[in-house]
């Protein structure tokens, strides 16, 4: 393979011709599978020309469990814990997407309180996931303290989830027909208090990190992805919004009760720093999304009304013959579930379209020409979770 990266004529060998010869060749480096900047077991094979990346080749599959095959041998309720383990940082969003696909085929009516609770847990989990993204991104760029701040807030959300679902990370909470457990008024009040704290915290994070001159120097105008590239590679979520497209499934193709809620879609632009589509704008979209999520959660608590949290679903679920494709806006992009049923008790085929898998496929396109340190910033700003990439 020849390098596309042209650095002009190499210097003439002077002292040791063999060493000089070596310098002109591309050096292969392995970033990962265990590397702090890859956020999991991703291996990036990087061909470098001194400090500059000529090629980046992702090697996937270190966390491959073939959950799609497992799903074919489980009943529809049994698949939910497996779906949890896709994006383990936003398990509520994963569950909701799969459950929505089954419910669409089944034609189940979900009680209003259950729908509201679903939005509540999905948005809380979005905040928790973005806090994780924020903390680890700061670590990637050499700042350790923000990670501790972010985990403090994330911990509050996980405590609440632990109380209602019994688990801190993999919840199995959203069930077909509704949700497993109800929230008490006391818990909802704590969520309302958390909203106030979170808004103040976000202001603090913005002062501490987002508007920090060093941080902006490291991330602005780095790893730029144009809107055309986003469409070509099928990128969604914060990547697409960071490039300047005002697209959010919750607004543009509303599901659940999202059409009743009032919130904005943050997009990247060149107004404050950098340009649309660079690392800083992608990062900033996430930070602004936390504020929007807080807005939605406040409205959920206002709208909350007493009622059942579980609809009527028969004991043995059999779906009609056919197929359905459902996509939801998850913290990392659009998760798509393509569910095919042959009328039996188990899914005939379950295809999960993972946003992170799509975003990793962009790396060979973005990386060439960057410094290695900038590649770390780019990978961090894309915010991948390997459980979802490898499934």
């Amino acid at each position, binding site marked *: 393979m020849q390098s596309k990266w042209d650095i002009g004529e190499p210097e003439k060998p002077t002292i040791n011709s063999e060493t000089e010869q070596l310098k002109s060749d591309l050096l292969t480096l392995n970033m990962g599978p265990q590397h702090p900047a890859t956020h999991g077991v991703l291996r990036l094979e990087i061909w470098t020309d001194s400090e500059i990346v000529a090629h980046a080749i992702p090697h996937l599959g270190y966390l491959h469990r073939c959950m799609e095959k497992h799903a074919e041998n489980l009943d529809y309720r049994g698949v939910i814990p497996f779906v949890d383990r896709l994006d383990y940082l936003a398990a509520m969003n994963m569950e909701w997407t799969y459950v929505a696909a089954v419910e669409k085929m089944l034609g189940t009516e979900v009680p209003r309180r259950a729908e509201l609770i679903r939005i509540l847990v999905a948005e809380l989990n979005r905040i928790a996931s973005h806090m994780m993204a924020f903390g680890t991104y700061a670590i990637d760029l050499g700042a350790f303290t923000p990670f501790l701040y972010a985990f403090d807030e994330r911990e509050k959300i996980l405590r609440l989830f632990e109380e209602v679902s019994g688990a801190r990370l993999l919840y199995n909470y959203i069930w077909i027909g509704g949700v497993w457990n109800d929230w008490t008024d006391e818990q909802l009040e704590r969520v309302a208090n958390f909203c106030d704290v979170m808004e103040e915290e976000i202001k603090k994070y913005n002062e501490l990190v987002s508007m920090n001159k060093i941080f902006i120097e490291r991330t602005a105008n780095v790893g730029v992805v144009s809107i055309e590239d986003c469409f070509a590679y099928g990128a969604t979520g914060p990547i697409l919004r960071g490039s300047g497209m005002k697209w959010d499934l919750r607004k543009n193709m509303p599901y659940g009760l999202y059409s009743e809620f009032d919130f904005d879609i943050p997009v990247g632009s060149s107004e404050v720093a950098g340009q649309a589509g660079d690392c800083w704008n992608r990062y900033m979209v996430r930070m602004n999304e936390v504020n929007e999520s807080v807005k939605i959660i406040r409205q959920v608590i206002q709208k909350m009304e007493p009622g059942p949290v579980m609809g009527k679903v028969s004991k043995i679920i059999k779906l009609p013959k056919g197929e359905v494709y459902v996509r939801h806006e998850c913290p990392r992009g659009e998760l798509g579930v393509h569910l095919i049923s042959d009328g039996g008790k188990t899914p005939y085929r379950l295809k999960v*379209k993972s946003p992170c898998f799509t975003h990793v496929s962009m790396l060979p396109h973005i990386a060439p020409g960057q410094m290695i340190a900038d590649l770390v910033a780019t990978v961090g700003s894309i915010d991948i979770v390997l459980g979802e990439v490898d499934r």
Partner: protein
Amino acid sequence: MLNVDFNKLAELINQNVSGANATVNTTEDAKTDSSISVEASKIFSVVEFLKTNKEMPFNALQAVSGVDYVEWMEVCYIMAHFDLTTPRELILKVKVTDRVSPAVDSVVSLYPAANFQERECYDMFGIKFNNHPDPRRILCPDDWEGFPLRKDYVAQKVYNGMEVFPDHKMNYDDREFIVRQDMIKKAQTQAAN
């Protein structure tokens, strides 16, 4: 499926791509989605038409996935149009009847998104994509045998000197394996006939 008039789209495909033979798989049930089937040999021209046409364009390819129906295999191209006024979705299907060396044309030159998706489809179903720039496995190791999502898949006994599914660790009474054995038996009898 949103904002797509399937009959009109099938008509458009038939008018503009000769031999595409587009048919609509309608469902009477409103709960399930309709899709469009086209000839496997014309998939490149059909996707090219869907990307470039003015009436109903699709600007993104979301996923390429396979389905094993034992008698035949299917490749589903899930396409979407990201547009603030008229977002669209479409499931496009091609049928592959050859189980021994199934192959369809790659669409990577139209949508770079297809690169990893087609590699995954090859990895899981063994469907080859002609003119693919990097036709390797992606999730399984390069020297893995068999294609896991085929219905008649049986995992290899030994991989690199390691026993796969060692007997003392398996619970064959588990429901999961009963179902799987049924599936394998069904696929094998189908293949024998």
